[in-house]
């Protein structure tokens, strides 16, 4: 056995492969994208098919401000990682915390919207097809925002306990890919729910 492995080894080859973290994250994004696609298909299929109850155009108001917050948070997270790569940990921290704040604002906006829909408009998940598909699709996205935000907060904790270093930049870049995915999904969900489906 040892003869084989000795003959098989040749340390001179230039050999570079993609990073595991990146490929793994792409895999996760692909799986999540497939789940979202099915919910989007259901939403589009059931547009206009509710037998009773509030219709989208009656009760929906496009959350432009909160959408902008979320989209800007993609820019801030990207900038944060760039700063960390450059070694400027303080600037990284400011941008990272800003990202968290923007994400949190988006969640707050969703909560406000849902409170209005449930208590003022009487639209719940069991009201009609619109209610079922709306809360499921938007809710699934909100859940993903929450998971992402949790991860961002954990990283912030590492920063605050002085464990974060410049060498972690690549991992944070992979995490930021997830955050960008969440934003792209929101662009799709926003278009489907507030533009196409109304």
């Amino acid at each position, binding site marked *: *056995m040892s003869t084989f492995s000795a003959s098989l080894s040749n340390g001179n080859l230039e050999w570079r*492969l993609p990073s595991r973290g990146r490929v793994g994250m792409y895999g996760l994004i692909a799986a999540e994208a497939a789940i979202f696609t099915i919910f989007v298909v259901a939403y589009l299929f059931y547009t206009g098919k509710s037998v009773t109850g509030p219709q989208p155009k009656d009760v929906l108001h496009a959350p432009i401000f909160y959408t902008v917050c979320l989209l800007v948070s993609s820019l801030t997270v990207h900038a944060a990682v760039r700063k960390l790569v450059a070694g400027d940990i303080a600037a990284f921290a400011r941008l990272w915390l800003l990202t968290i704040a923007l994400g949190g604002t988006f969640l707050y906006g969703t909560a406000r919207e849902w409170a209005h829909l449930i208590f003022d408009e009487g639209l719940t998940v069991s009201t009609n097809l619109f209610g079922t598909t709306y809360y499921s699709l938007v809710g699934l996205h909100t859940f993903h925002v929450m998971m992402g935000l949790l991860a961002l907060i954990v990283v912030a904790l590492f920063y605050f306990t002085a464990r974060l270093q410049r060498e972690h930049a690549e991992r944070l870049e992979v995490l930021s890919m997830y955050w960008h995915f969440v934003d792209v999904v929101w662009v799709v969900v926003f278009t489907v729910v507030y533009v196409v489906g109304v």
Partner: protein
Amino acid sequence: MSTNTIALSELSVSLPLPLRLHEWVTTVDHKRLGILYILYALTFLVAGGIEAIIMRLQLIRPHNDLVSPEVFNRMFTMHGTTMIFFAAMPLVFGFANYLVPLMIGARDMAFPRLNAFSFWMTALGGLLLYFSFLGGDGLYGGGGAPDVGWFAYAPLTAKTFSVGHSTDFWTLSLLVSGIGSVGTAINIIATILCMRCPGMALGKMPLLAWLNLTMAGLVILAVSPLTAAQLMLLVDRYLGGHFFDTQAGGSAVIWMHFFWIFGHPEVYVLVIPAFAFTSEIIPVFSRKAIFGYPVMVLATVAIGFISMSVWAHHMFTVGMSSGANTFFVLSTMAISVPTGIKIFNWLATMWGGKIRFTTPMLFCIGFLFQFLIGGLTGITLAVAPFDWHLGNSYYLVAHFHYVIVGAILFAAFGAFFYWFPKVSGKMYNEPLGKLFFWLFLSGFHLTFDFMHIPGLLGMPRRIYTYEPGRGWDIWNVIVTIGVFFQVVGILVFAVNLVWSYYRGNAAGNDPWDAWTLEWSTSSPPPGYNYAVIPTVRSRRPLWDLKHPEDPDWRYE
């Protein structure tokens, strides 16, 4: 075995049992997880087999009263769900886990902890599903096990028609194991793309790696729609949602679409690794390189893509438009072309070779024969108007068992025997292996050849009993008899495995005179797989070493 490679199993033998168990439970080593997956799969194969035996005994004559309709309906639901999700899929993942890192010259999978997490999620899913047997009508009445069929059509799964929690056991156990499946798939892809040894370009890796890469991609794209549909079902059942509530304008058909968008690629998830086994085994026992490696890769990727577009051939009878039906006939027929290409390439590999009829090779030959027939009955089913008779009948049941048992399970048995020496360090007993093959082959053909006939004579599936005088009786008897041959075969297999593990002859590194990297390390491999990460120059690195005057890299 040289003195400086000590197998983990040798070290462990000296530890007390609780510590050894702890090692296995907390392992992140791909080889151990692979073995755990496979043992888990074998256990559930037996459980699913018992469910099948109960069904076949009930159906041996018309108006039989061995079990009640409630129990029978739970049996076919649990049998299908168990076999697909807790026997076949773990089997496939187990082999992928064990073999992929070894065959690409890596030390482990890309994410060892994710690997362990994924296995335990799958394991938990199976236990959750079987927990459903407790409660409900009590164990004798089949408990509260799901009884909605393995594809759980709406609105039968609505709270109105499925009272109690049996459907929820189905939904939750598959949600949980689905997380495990996606985790493993991500791991396989990252391993293959990011951890190949130097020199192993994508075009130089073993076909098993290519096929598992395709399979993993399909898992990611296929299991996710099922997860989505199951979340929707939970919303309907527990939050008053209306996704599949036909009274509120919801659609029962859309569940079918979502399910089969998962369900069809799922069967390719199962069969593509079977292709992988045969693509490794047939060349070694024909003593020839695989014929047409690039075409095999292309055909596999093509099958992967096309398989995402054929799902509604499971829905030819639900009343889609003639245009839609016609499209799905075309896409389903199309997939037969790359599939046929693969069969021809395996035949061409054997052509001009020196075929050795070892147990693994016998199983691969069985695979070829049965996959041919199963593929051909698949073509008959692809012809939608013919499917209007054959769909949902015993002809269909015969077809898919032909492919799942006759092709996939046969190839898996071939893989068992081929890699058993590597995994255990011992040779299995060859005469017992051959006896198992002939017993199982006979039982398989008795059961599944003759099962086509009641379908052609109008017998639908999922019925706990049937009327006499329809010409179905004798065929059901023959089908049931075949089961006993299969059972005896499996017993012989189990005896062979256990006896050989403890008393078999030492296998050595390379009992088959094979050509891929796993045969260059010890049997069983050390925990770190390779003392020195190899560098390769061709698809058959060991062929190059054994034939320095005529290495493969001159021809690739």
